[in-house]
């Protein structure tokens, strides 16, 4: 949840989740027809009440004009039609799209760089230590990340500006400038994400048979050929996971934007999740906010399906 990361990543490979045909391994079959239902009763009650029911309600509310106080008025698809011409909403969506570069492309790219180098070497000295260090940004609260980076970017003694000053650059308010605010926040997301992609790929590469590399070397395959024909196919599962997790994170980013910029300056860092919060809880346009939330949910579900499809069609 707060770590815009991994909880949502799980289904990436759960396409085999309803694994049928393991009947042979199921104990107590036959004698316990009602038992699984009894086991599921409490979890389903809690999950249904606090996840499924609210989710369905979000969709329902999106068809109403409602300020949260007076009785809601049914408007059909009215809220969605209004969204079509809503520049704030489209702007936010575009910013989420830009965040794909910082959440997905850059971290995965950086992790690839590492993997290309790694395939050259048998064992990395101190691998465990690297894993622990690289993973730290994943663990700390996103709010802390945002607070720390906000003053690192500060024009007054912020270390980013101090460091750039060594090269003669004048201090500038990265988060207060319309042109730099979005990439500045985006780079923080990259900082959070790349360690996860690296650790994921490092784990994946351990599984690739070393003999393949030796054989390829004997056949005269260069580093690029080995990367292209051994590493890349061998890491396909990890790549799909890294893509899915980071793309979802790019679309649900909230904490970071809330803490660093509140969507500003001049909506330059406004994102869909922030727009939902603002509409629902600041402007009390609850129906419109629910429509935006519904779009976000559909978008995220569609994205993860798309990545899965792409992977399956490649196999």
């Amino acid at each position, binding site marked *: 949840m707060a770590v815009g990361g991994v909880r949502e990543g*799980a289904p990436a490979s759960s396409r085999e989740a309803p694994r049928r045909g393991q009947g042979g391994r199921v104990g107590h*079959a036959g004698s316990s027809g009602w038992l699984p239902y009894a086991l599921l009763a409490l979890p389903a009650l809690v999950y249904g009440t606090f996840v499924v029911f609210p989710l369905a309600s979000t969709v329902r509310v999106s068809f109403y004009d409602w300020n949260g106080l007076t009785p809601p008025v049914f408007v059909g698809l009215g809220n969605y039609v209004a969204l079509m011409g809503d520049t704030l909403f489209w702007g936010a969506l575009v910013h989420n799209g830009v965040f794909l570069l910082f959440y997905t492309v850059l971290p995965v790219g950086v992790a690839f760089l590492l993997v290309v180098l790694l395939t050259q070497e048998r064992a990395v000295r101190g691998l465990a230590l690297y894993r*622990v260090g690289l993973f730290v940004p994943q663990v700390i609260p996103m709010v802390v990340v945002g607070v*720390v980076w906000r003053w690192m970017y500060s024009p007054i003694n912020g270390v980013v500006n101090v460091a750039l000053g060594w090269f003669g650059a004048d201090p500038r308010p990265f988060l207060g400038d319309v042109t730099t605010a979005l990439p500045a926040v985006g780079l923080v997301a990259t900082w959070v994400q790349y360690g996860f992609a690296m650790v994921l790929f490092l784990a994946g590469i351990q599984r690739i048979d070393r003999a393949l590399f030796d054989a390829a070397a004997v056949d005269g395959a260069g580093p690029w050929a080995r990367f292209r024909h051994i590493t890349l196919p061998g890491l396909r599962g990890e790549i799909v996971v890294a893509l899915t997790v980071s793309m979802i994170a790019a679309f649900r980013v909230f904490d970071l934007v809330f803490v660093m910029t509140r969507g500003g300056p001049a909506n330059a860092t406004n994102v869909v999740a922030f727009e939902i919060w603002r509409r629902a809880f600041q402007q009390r346009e609850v129906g419109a906010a629910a429509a935006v939330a519904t779009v*976000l949910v559909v978008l995220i579900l569609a994205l*993860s399906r798309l990545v899965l499809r792409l992977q399956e069609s490649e196999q």
Partner: protein
Amino acid sequence: MRGCSDTVSGVPMRPGRGFAVSQQTVLTAFMVLALFPIVLMWLTALKTSAELATNPFGLPEQWRFDNFAETWRQGNFAVYLRSSVIVVVPVVAGALALSVLAGYAFGRFRFRGRGVLFAVFLLGIMVPTEGLIIPLYYFMDDLSLLNTYWALILPQIALSTSFGAFWMRAFFADVPGELVDAAAVDGAGPLTTLWRVLLPLARPALGTLSVLLFMWTWNEFLLALVLVQDESVRTLPVALSFFQNQYTAQVPLLAAASTIVSFPILVIYALLHRRFIEGMVAGSVKG
């Protein structure tokens, strides 16, 4: 560097020294980059505002541990720490219990509607909290639970059970059938088998799950921001965001507050990092 070719007259060569160095260098560089802001946060928390202007990177001239005491007092962090603990403990405990029940049902039994039900449970892993937060707010209002710990505990148990059911199903499905059959032969019913045979085996899986759930609950922001406004119920991450607005200019205090909020999770990470990493990697890869 690319010059240290791997095939000189067809002979496979050991990896070149140049590669070994550059790879180690790249790893080190990115690890330093990952840790730098955290270390900077700690160092900054121990300086004065004045020193920050002259010495932004170095060790503090005088280690001002007073900053922590001042932040703790002014920021009311004792209250928020208490709230965070009161929320996190029942969420982890409750979600563990429900995850075991659901995971056992999905992992070891075949029943009508299993596929559909499991897919519905999985939905909660993908759906962003933003998709639930609006009705949750009015729902909690109807139940008169806004501004209570329950408003944070109940939805987070539910959301955590989604990943937990997925996680425990994978564990239960992987247990060899012979083990369970042997228990059945000895006359153990399904519940006895779960309690006596499977749960002791599940200890590592449960341990990793608790660590992940602790982290997600400890760091949760949106629910805590929206569902409680009352200061006495506020959790640490939301408190930090409010603290930031009040003390924008006092960077050492902000750094101290950030250190306080991240301290518990970092201590647990230092002790149990293998569970964190394996859990997050396996949780996303395993199916």
